[in-house]
């Protein structure tokens, strides 16, 4: 909170309002120390913070690029092949889209009356899936926005009341979970490519009898889905059936307070690094080997809750 006030005071002198934004949605409030020309080229790490900000860093240099403010409760993030970043705001019941290195949203999806917690972009079609908690409604859902715009198609599930996690695979199949929305136990639903309804799917774990708990999120690592539940568990789903593949142990002191993001510059191969929040910062690990963290960011972060990586034009 202190850092926010200092920023706003500084920006107020430059003409920035210190109160809530007049228009619904976030506004840029920070000055970048990284030239725009550089920021557009390099990979950027977007971090949703519990202080209602989203901080943006260069992925490899770990330099603060921007602080995006004006959110109510920023939660899960995702990015598409162009580098556009989608930030869910559970409090505002909206999803904001930013261009890579952009300072203002280029589009806003009205997700009301639901509370969006996570998202994923279908690499095959460009559709945006949003994992919704009930919000001011009675039941959450998976909202799929064709081409990341317009009115979504809503998918509800008989087992899962509220959704907190979702991820597309490379072919356009979607795996989703209630995460921790209904207590500690976590369940999964699968929306096959071209499917019209969610299918409950049992995912086996590393032992013959296994109950999933405390799932933070789901990611696609280029080859497998990764269920983020203290350790990272790789699973596969085929013919409507789940298979356990393997795990990655991330050495952390007390578990992660939010979902990880897998850094992957070759979508058809497995990612090579993973980033995830801890109380007060973001850690980096090698993937899939895991083990001890290899780097961290703590400057400018209060209570990180989620993150995504937007790939820069350097990879084009």
């Amino acid at each position, binding site marked *: 909170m202190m850092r926010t006030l200092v920023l706003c005071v500084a920006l107020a002198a430059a003409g920035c309002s210190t109160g809530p934004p007049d228009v619904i949605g976030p506004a840029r409030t920070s000055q970048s120390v990284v030239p725009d020309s550089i920021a557009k080229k390099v990979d950027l790490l977007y971090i949703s913070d519990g202080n209602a900000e989203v901080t943006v860093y260069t992925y490899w240099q770990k330099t603060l690029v921007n602080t995006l403010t004006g959110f109510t409760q920023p939660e899960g993030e995702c990015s598409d092949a162009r580098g556009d970043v989608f930030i869910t705001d559970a409090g505002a019941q909206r999803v904001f889209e930013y261009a890579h290195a952009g300072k203002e949203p280029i589009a806003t999806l009205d997700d009301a009356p639901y509370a969006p917690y996570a998202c994923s972009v279908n690499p095959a079609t460009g559709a945006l899936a949003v994992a919704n908690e009930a919000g001011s409604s009675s039941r959450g859902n998976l909202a799929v926005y064709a081409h990341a715009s317009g009115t979504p198609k809503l998918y509800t599930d008989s087992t899962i009341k509220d959704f907190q996690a979702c991820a597309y695979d490379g072919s356009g199949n979607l795996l989703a979970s209630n995460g921790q929305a209904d207590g500690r136990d976590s369940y999964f639903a699968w929306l096959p490519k071209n499917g019209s309804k969610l*299918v409950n799917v049992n995912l086996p774990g590393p032992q013959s009898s296994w109950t999933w708990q405390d799932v933070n999120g789901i990611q696609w690592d280029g080859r*497998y889905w990764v269920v983020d539940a203290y350790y990272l568990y790789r699973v*596969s789903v085929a*013919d*409507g059936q789940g*298979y356990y593949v393997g795990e990655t142990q991330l050495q952390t002191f007390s578990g992660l307070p939010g979902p990880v993001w897998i850094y992957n510059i070759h979508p058809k191969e497995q990612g090579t690094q993973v980033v995830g929040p801890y109380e007060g910062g973001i850690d980096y690990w090698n993937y899939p080997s895991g083990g001890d963290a290899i780097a961290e960011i703590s400057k400018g972060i209060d209570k990180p809750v989620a993150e995504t990586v937007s790939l820069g034009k350097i990879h084009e």
Partner: protein
Amino acid sequence: MKHQGAARFALSMGVVAAFLAAGCRGLQPNPATQTVSAAAAGPAIKITNAWVFISDPGSAQVFIYTLPRLKLIEIATGFTQPQGECSDDKGDVWVTDGAAKTIYELEHSGKLVKQLSDAVGAPIGCAWDPKTGNLAVMNFLGSNSQGGAVLVYHHGSGVPNLYYNPKLFNYEFGGYDGAGNLFFDGVGTDRKFILSELAANATQAKTVKVSGAKLHTPGMVEWDASANDLVVGDQNCSNLSASCVYRMTIAKNGATISGQTNLENAEGRQVCDMIQGVLWNRSIVGSDFDFCGSGSSATYVWPYPVGGKPHSENAHNVSQPFGAAISVRPMRDSP
């Protein structure tokens, strides 16, 4: 996450009310009584002593139906994830269970005969070799992020021998021809369909080039001895959520598609996802795992090779049906 105790397995029979009313007492099935029940279903239908076993991992059960009417006879329970199936000449049905890493052998009545452990992966499909009596099991995945394999259990017991096609990652369904050659499908690490052959006495499987159509998602594989061709299913025919089966002529230089059978529901819509069906008496018997439309999953008997709408249908039991196998009642049990 938390770990639960050891998985329970106790195969039991759930006998449907109609069957109880027909005179069956207790939990032991009565095939003779069931044959009478099937005959009463309609005079135009030829009575058979064949039943179909439909695995349903959605309910962790195996449903046993008469053919061709698809009247429910038995429900075998106690599975974790029953998937692909195959049968032998005794009328026994083998059921793979990927989560339990076990293959169960059930007799015609559905009673458990024995079980095989799969220590190296997750079994998803099987095939029984009429020439040798061996049982081949396809593992979808191996351990520690490794790909699958073919396991061949000599005479359906003991410790299996493992076989691989180096180009294959996920192994799925298979079938033997009359000469002891095993054909099986799956996908490579790039998720593209691959048909493979493990020739009799070979130590390594090879890829079979398929010409005439592009297959997308592996489905049933079965040798049709009457037509001398291989029947291979595609769960995503033409890359759509629609299932079909292809007839393939096998030659030294590969497989050539000679025909296609589309499978429809009673409304005439191509079914969403038949994962593993089985040939029977100029029909295909299998189930549609329907996640595409507003209908429910169901089990069907389709005319083959014509395809189209089904001869019969049962949409009352299955939730996420997977595999199918035919069990012909042993002659010694005939009334």
